[in-house]
């Protein structure tokens, strides 16, 4: 199969405009005849469901949460980028585009990223119109902060709760449409399979989590906005329920999965405290505006950080990357912290931590100013660690945070399955091998508010879909396969909880496919995951019934998919014989330890095509061509 990116021709700046003109439209009276299913109600899902229904499409939206207000977008703290240039500091659409392409280590599509930068300015306008309370100056104008990988201030924020406020804006727009009867909302309902008829996506099989009832929902197009797969590592900053199941079902039905090995390890998270821990907590990147990262110069220095004199501290980011300093991009900052800890200079009980110190900023600006900027984050930190960051530096360590890889989509956000569209973190499209801070919210909302509402019309206007009913053999087969899978999980009646398998999988992934990878670690990981998978299907314990609210069953169903995904991630990491962004192969590094790309062999997207249970997946390649930027070794020095 060939991957057709469908990037419009013409100059970069005009591609989206001319594409919008060239796309087919559906007339207003006909829109209500089309039924679109949206799975997920985070930023991408809620914004797309609301907007498509405003346009007149008949929309159904499915979430496994009890309300569309709870998706993990809500936890995004720091902000959202937009090329508004309100600060008059030299920002522009082109600069946001360039920073994002470079930040992604030249592994994203130019055309998509440029469109993202163009949409960014509309997002801020749209959100303010909805009443999102972004931070403001006394004069009433919007204010900005800086984020990693950029030398301009273009990040808009609502205290440390930007994701929450943006999501509530989209959620309220969605609830308005639900109230009008324009969107049918299915809460506590999880997609368990994708329905294809004659090779085209025509609906989903879903499980009502209250009753366990499995049912099929048909439509003219399906939109997945189901988030990322960072929880394959068990410990991540993702919410506990975030999972890959919807995307994985789509993969097994034929949607190619792109760049699975591109995962983002965020440098500033609260270090793990023990084996009981169920998740890791992020400390927003915005803290690096005023916090300085350091570690003791001496190995095994266990003195109180306040007793370590200035001369015996290593401000490693400022030392290694003087021009970006503490605002070096995430992949680079994470590796630098790991390096320090590997040298035995890590702090805290486990030695896996470095300091993020606010003493200088507090001296310069005062407690009040710092508390106004980061109060809720400081409080969150103190609650978890029992340490006061106003008095002593925070201890931080990198943790899995985001996944750049995801379902492959073309410029219209359609996967390799006709009719199946994928938005937000669930697709692979805009961040290359590393995402810059404050760009996830931007992408989710650009996809949902501004891209899919237009491109879906182009698809529907030309699709010529035959009517399908629930008794179609392909539909019935998908539904009964979902039933069988649930029964099978219940009937294993083994000895181990799904969580214990998930923890083991996470450890393999973190140790062997985490911040540093190599041929040996990846080969071992593939074997270990294979063995774990085998044990899972004979020894997992799922008490209770499949015809009931059963959280153990929900977990087991998701963990089973994570194991298969983990294997594919390792395979992808193994095949990509270069280092780029978050993908760091120890065999490929520059003499000073930076990622060494191989543009001749790997300036491409790798998308994996499923070939059945007992066959290896095929690695499809979409070459990346760069017309507007020059490929260079990324430098933040």
């Amino acid at each position, binding site marked *: 199969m060939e991957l057709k990116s469908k990037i419009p021709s013409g100059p970069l700046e005009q591609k989206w405009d001319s594409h919008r003109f060239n796309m087919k439209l559906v007339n207003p009276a006909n829109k209500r005849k089309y039924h679109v299913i949206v799975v997920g109600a985070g930023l991408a899902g809620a*914004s797309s469901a609301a907007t498509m229904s405003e346009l007149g499409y008949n929309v159904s939206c499915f979430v496994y*949460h*009890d*309300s*569309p207000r*709870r*998706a*993990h977008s*809500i*936890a995004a703290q720091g902000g959202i980028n937009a090329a*508004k240039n309100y600060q008059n500091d030299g920002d522009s659409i082109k600069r946001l585009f360039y920073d994002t392409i470079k930040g992604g280590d030249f592994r994203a599509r130019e055309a998509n990223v440029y469109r993202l930068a163009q949409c960014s300015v*509309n997002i*801020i*306008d*749209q*959100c303010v*119109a909805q*009443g999102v*309370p*972004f*931070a*403001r100056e006394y*004069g*009433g*104008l919007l204010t900005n902060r800086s984020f990693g990988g950029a030398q301009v201030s273009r990040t808009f924020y609502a*205290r440390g*709760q930007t994701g*929450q*406020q943006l999501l509530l804006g989209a959620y*309220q*727009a969605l*609830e308005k449409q*639900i*109230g009008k009867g324009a969107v049918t909302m299915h809460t506590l309902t999880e997609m368990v399979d994708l329905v294809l008829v004659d090779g085209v996506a025509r609906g989903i099989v879903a499980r009502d989590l209250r009753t366990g009832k499995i049912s099929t929902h048909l439509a003219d197009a399906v939109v997945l906005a189901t988030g990322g797969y960072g929880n394959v590592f068990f410990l991540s900053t993702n*919410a*506990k329920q975030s999972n890959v199941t919807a995307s994985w079902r789509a993969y097994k039905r034929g949607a190619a999965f792109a760049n699975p090995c591109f995962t983002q390890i965020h440098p500033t998270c609260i270090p793990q405290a*023990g084996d*009981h*821990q*169920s*998740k890791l*907590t992020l400390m927003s990147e915005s803290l690096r505006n005023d916090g300085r990262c350091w570690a003791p110069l001496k190995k095994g220095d266990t003195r109180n950080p306040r007793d370590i004199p200035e001369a015996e501290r290593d401000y490693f980011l400022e030392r290694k990357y003087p021009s970006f300093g503490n605002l070096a991009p995430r992949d680079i900052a994470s590796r630098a912290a790991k390096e320090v800890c590997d040298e035995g200079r890590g702090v805290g009980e486990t030695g896996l931590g470095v300091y993020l110190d606010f003493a200088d900023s507090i001296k310069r600006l005062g407690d009040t100013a710092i508390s106004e900027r980061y109060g809720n984050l400081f409080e*969150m930190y103190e*609650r*978890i660690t029992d340490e006061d960051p106003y008095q002593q530096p925070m201890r931080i360590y990198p943790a899995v945070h985001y996944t750049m890889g995801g379902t492959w989509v073309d410029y219209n956000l359609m996967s390799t399955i006709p009719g199946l569209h994928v938005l937000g973190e669930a697709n692979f499209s805009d961040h290359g091998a590393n995402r810059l801070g404050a760009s996830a919210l931007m992408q989710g909302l650009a996809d949902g*508010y*501004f891209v899919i*509402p237009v491109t879906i019309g182009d698809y529907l206007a030309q699709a010529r879909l035959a009517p399908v009913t629930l008794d179609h053999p392909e539909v019935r087969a998908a539904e009964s396969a979902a039933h069988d899978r649930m029964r099978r999980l219940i009937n294993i009646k083994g*000895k*181990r*909880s*799904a*969580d*214990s398998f998930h923890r083991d999988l996470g450890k393999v992934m973190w140790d062997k496919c985490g911040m540093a990878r190599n041929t040996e670690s990846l080969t071992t990981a593939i074997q270990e995951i294979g063995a774990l998978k085998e044990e899972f299907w004979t020894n997992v*314990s799922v*008490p209770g019934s499949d015809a*009931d*609210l*059963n*959280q153990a069953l929900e977990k087991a169903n998701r963990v089973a998919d994570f194991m298969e995904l983990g294997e594919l991630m390792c395979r992808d990491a193994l095949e990509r014989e270069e280092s780029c962004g978050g993908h760091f192969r120890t065999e490929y590094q520059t003499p000073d330890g930076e990622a060494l790309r191989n543009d001749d062999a790997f300036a491409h997207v790798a998308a994996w095509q499923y070939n059945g249970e007992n066959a290896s997946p095929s690695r499809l390649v979409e070459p990346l061509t760069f017309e507007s930027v020059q490929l260079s070794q990324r430098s933040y020095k």
Partner: protein
Amino acid sequence: MNFTLKVWRQANTASAGRLETYAAKAIPSDASFLEMIDLVNMHLEEEGKEPIAFAHDCREGICGSCSMMIDGVAHGPVKGAATCQVHMRTFTDGQEITIEPWRSVAFPVLKDLITDRSAFDRIIQSGGFISAPTGGARDANEILIGKLESDSAMDAAACIGCGACVAACPNGSASLFTGAKISHLALLPQGQPERYRRVEAMVAQMDEEHFGHCTLYGECQEACPKQISIDVISQMNRDFIVAAATKRPQVTSAGAG
């Protein structure tokens, strides 16, 4: 640390529930309250017994999923924290802890500690939004909003929709939740055109969902993990009175052009 848990178990909305006793053994003091339940559940699952069902997701106090009465207090003993932000070091070793679901007629129990909070969504549907269909918004900086107004709107907008306010209220009132959304939008210039329609519709919906009336006990703001002030209830009441006093019949004469 070791604890004795008395946990509310209920198979579904229709059946009766009861408190069951579980031993939580060898719990690290750094564990969060939910991680403590995870450990108890892991043992139950290994024994082939049904784990305790509870709502949770982000585990950092922002998604609003977790919802437990801990010894009769919504979200437990830590002020300004959701259940997931309570750590076991707050309790005494050997303590007996009673865990129940939210108590309110408007939040029926789905299973064990999980309740149905869809009434909150329906209150938002009735008017908790600014009508601004996507596209055509003017430049964000054309709307000037003073920092103080903007900050007050943000204080109200911080609500996570967990339902602790309702669970803590002796009347089972949803006034803190509803007032928070009304205040958030009423404090902003963008919220003015729909301001009085909104308050009327949302208050009516609150009644329809069988939430009780507010008699200003103030228990809600004590329980609120985001410490939203009952000032938002005053704002709601004020706007409701203005809406009632200034209401005019809607003129609906439009014709095809």
